[in-house]
């Protein structure tokens, strides 16, 4: 970048947008997961990053002994689901049944984050474990400069978004999920078991988070215990910008935050990339907590 004939500011900008798409892709998968989960539980899961990290590590370990990326992906997703279901069954579920305040449940997810992150630290150690997957050369696609792997990631994320959309709109599971998200009591009055829907939602969102974590590890070149935690607030930024609890808003929010982060890295030191996301998060929470696309206040307490 920057060699050869004059590079116009616009094309630099677009290159940044291209990189942003990769971040946005990973972010979108993770944010949609967070939003779907929040929609049915009303608790922002502070351990969401750890589900991602777990997926990353499980994927890493799978790669180590099997050298198969598809298998690593499957197991990463499976481990995310297992952790998600475990969180719901053993911790959040019981406290929810006793009508514990959402704030206290939030504190519990912080404790879970502490446990999982440090468990991974204990098992794998604190160093970054490198993941190297052979990567193709960057190729120009329109104004963007992306490797074939990055193209796959963006394509896969888009496919997942479409799949989620189809799931929510056209399957009974998706409709039940939206019903429970709006009113658990009315859903029950219609014959839906809210707790079954919640469990299934955790399975889905855990899998998505595990996948996002593994892909994040791939694009970062390595996995380490705070991988997901560092990403967590970026995910919150995207979720809140899009209106937390709204899966479609989450997709849009991810796009905005991902692109904003990468584009900003062109103009200010890339050390501050995540700070840009956090700044967006703070501004969103303070001034537009319902997200850019909602006209009424989203409930969060």
């Amino acid at each position, binding site marked *: 970048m920057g060699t050869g004939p004059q590079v116009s500011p616009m094309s630099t900008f677009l290159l940044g947008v291209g990189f942003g798409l990769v971040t946005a892709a990973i972010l979108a998968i993770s944010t949609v997961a967070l939003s779907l989960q929040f929609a049915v539980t009303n608790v922002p899961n502070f351990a969401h990053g750890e589900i991602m990290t777990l997926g990353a590590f499980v994927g890493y370990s799978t790669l180590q002994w099997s050298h198969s990326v598809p298998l690593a992906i499957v197991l990463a997703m499976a481990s995310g689901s297992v952790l998600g279901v475990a969180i719901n069954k053993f911790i959040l579920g019981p406290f929810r049944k006793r009508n*514990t305040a959402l704030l206290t449940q939030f504190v519990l997810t912080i*404790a879970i984050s502490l*446990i999982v*992150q440090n468990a991974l*630290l204990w098992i794998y150690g604190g160093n970054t474990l490198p993941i190297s997957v052979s990567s193709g050369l960057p190729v120009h696609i329109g104004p963007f400069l992306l490797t074939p792997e990055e193209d796959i990631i963006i394509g896969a994320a888009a496919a997942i978004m479409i799949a989620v959309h189809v799931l929510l709109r056209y399957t009974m599971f998706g409709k039940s999920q939206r019903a429970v998200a709006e009113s658990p009591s009315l859903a029950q009055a219609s014959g839906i078991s809210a707790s079954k829907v919640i469990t299934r939602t955790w399975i889905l969102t855990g899998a998505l988070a595990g996948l996002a974590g593994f892909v994040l590890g791939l694009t970062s070149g390595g996995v380490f215990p705070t991988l997901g935690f560092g990403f967590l607030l970026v995910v919150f930024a995207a979720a809140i910008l899009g209106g937390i609890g709204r899966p479609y808003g989450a997709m849009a929010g991810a796009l905005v935050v991902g692109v904003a982060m990468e584009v900003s890295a062109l103009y200010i*030191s890339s050390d*501050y990339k995540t*700070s840009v996301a956090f700044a967006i998060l703070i501004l969103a*929470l303070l001034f537009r907590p319902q997200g850019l696309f909602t006209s009424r206040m989203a409930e969060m*307490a």
Partner: protein
Amino acid sequence: MLEYLVSVLTLGAATAVIVLGLNVRWGLSGQLDLGFYLMVAVGAYVYGVATLGPSNGQGQVTYILGLRLPFLVAILIAGAASGLLSLVIGSIALRRVRGERYAIVTVAATIIGYSFISQYSPLFDGYNGIYGVPRPFAGVLNLSAQGYSNFYFVLEVCVLVIVFVLLEMVRRSPFGRAVKAVREDEVAAAAFGKSVYGLRLKAYVLGGVVGGIGGCLLMGYISAFNPASWSAIETFLLYGALIVGGTGNNAGAVLGALIVLIGIPQLAQAIPVVGNDANALPAIENMVIGLLIIGVLRFRPIGILPERKTMSGQLPRWMLHGSKKEGVTAERSMVSPTDAVAAPILEVRDVRKRFGGLYAVQGATFSVQRSSITGLVGPNGAGKSTMINLISGLMSPDSGVIVLDGEEIQGRPLHWTSRRGLLRTFQVAREWPKLTVTENVIAAHPDRERESLWRSLFARRSLRRSENELEAQALATIDRLGLSRVKDELAGSLSGGQKRLLEFARAAMVKPKVLLLDEPLAGVNPVLAQEIAAAVEDLRSAGTTIVIVEHNMRFVEKSCDTVVVMGQGRVIGEGSMAELRQNEEVVEAYLGSGSMA
């Protein structure tokens, strides 16, 4: 051995101060601040900068100002710095966000601060951090290494004791009580005229100052401070300490700090298998803390040393049911003698209120005579609750006028009308559950000047006098309402009926001009209903005008001088119950119009 113990406890004392600071924010004020460690860091850094001498061979580092200020001055400056930062952050964050949102803002802000400080080298030398900070009084005293360690430990303990005593004073003061009231139920606090935002902000800043002081003690001990010492996870560990030790209890905060932040690492080191693995050790410690948090919240949420001795084991109400509505700030309150004047004390003229397409109140007009007991009745959906909310200021009418003692009050917020002498109760009792009955009644008193933080620390004698007077007044009121037996019980543990009587006690303390009672007899047995009727009459003879929304017609008939009936958002009748029973429109409002077939 002694050496080792002293060094461990030195760390413990500094940590205890930090957890005490967190206790002000989370324990006293109920704010889930996940970025608290930023305050500690700021305190440490500023103290370092203040005490460093001129360049001592570290090369050109911008933060070396060569001030070499003495210990006490440096601590005060550092505390002020973290206080100032708290003021800035708090004045923005506390106005706009609550609960989990607030927590997320604090983490994000802290991480931004962390990124900035660690990456912007000119400030505090980035990741290297500050080091070589002189130990307090080291140059002055001529002690051996061990002797100095002991000295510093004692110095810290002195600071700890001073901070502890001051915080206890604050906790027991009218200010502390008011902060707790806001924590428990901010709508009720606003209804009694408290400044919700102001109280929260003061508690927030105080917590920051104490945290900063804790940071100074750390810096004085370690002589160095860099970003590795204060990642986001540190705050979570502090919460572990506080939750285990006892949220809201200062001694619990100290205990929790010692057990969780000192004890667990020490224990972990003693376990042979794990103790030797430098990597695994902190990880396991943190896992244990995480498990402890979950375990404590499940089995003994109040912690080892609960905030109050008489508390039951279950989660305190403010951790159980978050209160949503925001109260607003207010001024003075009113106590007034009765004037035997003909003008009604409360007038409602052609008030309208719409919710979406539905008219809850459409052109309601009535007036309330001074010193009367007026019933406000009507079937469900008639608009009575909305009317009460409009009068008290919880909602604003779309049009129309509400006049209180000659002054227009429509559209004014809850705490404003409360200070003009209009008090209301709620359908669901809104007691402050973790305050005792006596404290609930005293806290209801409208004199807000007593509840200043300044006074709790510096005007204790005059406060003591007024506290005694108020307490006597409160006890007399409690006695009149038959609650003496439970005066020291936590209000949250009272029965429903007792809570109702407590609401009357609080109202009696305020001596408002007008009292709006929202279904005071809901769920009340006949005996209690008698007591309530007596309490109402009592208040009237003390000069308060009373408006009662009720469904219980027998009570209304017996206790009210006159009755106003609402139906479909309008006033459809005024007079005695006997008259109203003859009024066909009234009967139809209750029984419906019947079939058109």
